[in-house]
């Protein structure tokens, strides 16, 4: 099982119309080389699941600017004016999800839960169309699992079996996205041999990772 593939091979796993999760928080911890390859390939009609749409010239923001996205599911789009413009013009659909709910919905999908009850969003616009369930006198929203066809994530150090270490705040959504997609592709700042990562501190176990690309950052 050789998981190490080229960036070109990697982006071939992404086709028009797919739902794609991409890690990163304002582009920190985003797999920027995979994103660039995706921009170059020009696949379109993507549904993007991201924390935010980053900036017009950095991270997933480029995919928005390049009009490859038909729908965005995110907690924040304010740092990329093009997302707002396309939304106001009706060119793109935007589903805003509270950040904690976004990560829990992914985790539910990845970890086999049918949903989770969260107090976040009760009595706000967020509750529209959702089931409200009362537990011990308190109201919660039933939030449903959110999964993707492909997840593109970034690791700092990845061994050839797929075990991942993340670095500092570049961790963010990456570990949870790794659980919630059919195909998981990790862009590694550094690829190391199997055995070089202490099994005790692995942050994403190899079984979640389908392919590894060497991002060449190190």
């Amino acid at each position: 099982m050789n998981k190490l593939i080229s960036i070109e091979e990697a982006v071939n796993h992404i086709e028009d119309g797919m739902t794609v999760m991409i890690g990163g928080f304002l582009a920190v911890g985003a797999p920027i080389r995979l994103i660039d390859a995706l921009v170059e390939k020009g696949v379109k009609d993507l549904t993007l699941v991201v924390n935010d749409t980053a900036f017009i010239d950095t991270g997933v923001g480029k995919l928005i600017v390049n009009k490859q996205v038909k729908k965005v599911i995110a907690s924040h789009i304010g740092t990329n004016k093009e997302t707002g413009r396309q939304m106001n013009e009706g060119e793109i659909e935007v589903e805003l999800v509270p950040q904690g709910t976004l990560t829990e919905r992914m985790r539910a999908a990845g970890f086999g839960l049918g949903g989770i009850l969260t107090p976040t969003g009760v009595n706000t616009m967020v509750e529209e169309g959702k089931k409200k369930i009362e537990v011990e006198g308190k109201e919660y929203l039933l939030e449903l699992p959110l999964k993707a066809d492909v997840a593109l994530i970034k690791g700092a150090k990845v061994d050839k079996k797929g075990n991942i270490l993340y670095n500092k705040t570049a961790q963010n959504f990456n570990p949870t996205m790794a659980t919630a997609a059919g195909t998981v592709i990790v862009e590694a700042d550094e690829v190391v041999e199997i055995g070089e990562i202490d099994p005790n501190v692995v942050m994403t176990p190899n079984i979640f990772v389908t392919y590894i690309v060497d991002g060449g950052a190190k």
Partner: protein
Amino acid sequence: MDKNKVKEIIAKRVAQEMKDGDVINLGIGLPTLVANYISDDIDVILQSENGFVGIGPSPKEGEEDLDLTNAGGQLVTIKKGGAFFDSATSFGIIRGGHVNATVLGALQVDSKGNLANWMIPGKMVPGMGGAMDLVVGAKKVIVAMTHTAKGSPKILKECNLPLTAAGQVDLIVTEMGVMEVTDKGLLLKELGPGVTIEDIKAATEAELIISEDLKEMEI
């Protein structure tokens, strides 16, 4: 009053709410300034919802780490004894009540403790980010903001913008005063420097209940 002076008053007063051992989340903008005024005598742990506890000051030139930013995307440092984690854990900490207080700005806040700070329909729809989780999850919600926006009251009888959360605000701190959200409405507990009851009433749409112990902010 000078804009920076206004911010300083608010940030200084909010900082007085912090207690030793508290885990605090400071929102982007004005709330971030609170960190500058926390007493050195207490150990307050700042949480950054993008994934760590122990926010330190801005890095020195040449020591920046692109993988270490706060929730506003600014380069920061981590204090000794801090810890990184993923977003799921970060919001578990927030939603689970492990944050003692969150400090945020507001577009509107009302006498029931409702808060609107995430969108203006048809105008500004940046998304709620982590605000909805923070306001629902933190043990204490402190709104830190200028008292009015271009002269218009922001403390209303009832919010008319889409809510961030209903009935979650505990304390409102502005340059004009400190107001606690109680079952009976907003209790004015402190007045800003040089501010009279009449001044603050005139700048506030919501009813203010005047505390028997009303005093001037000590800042």
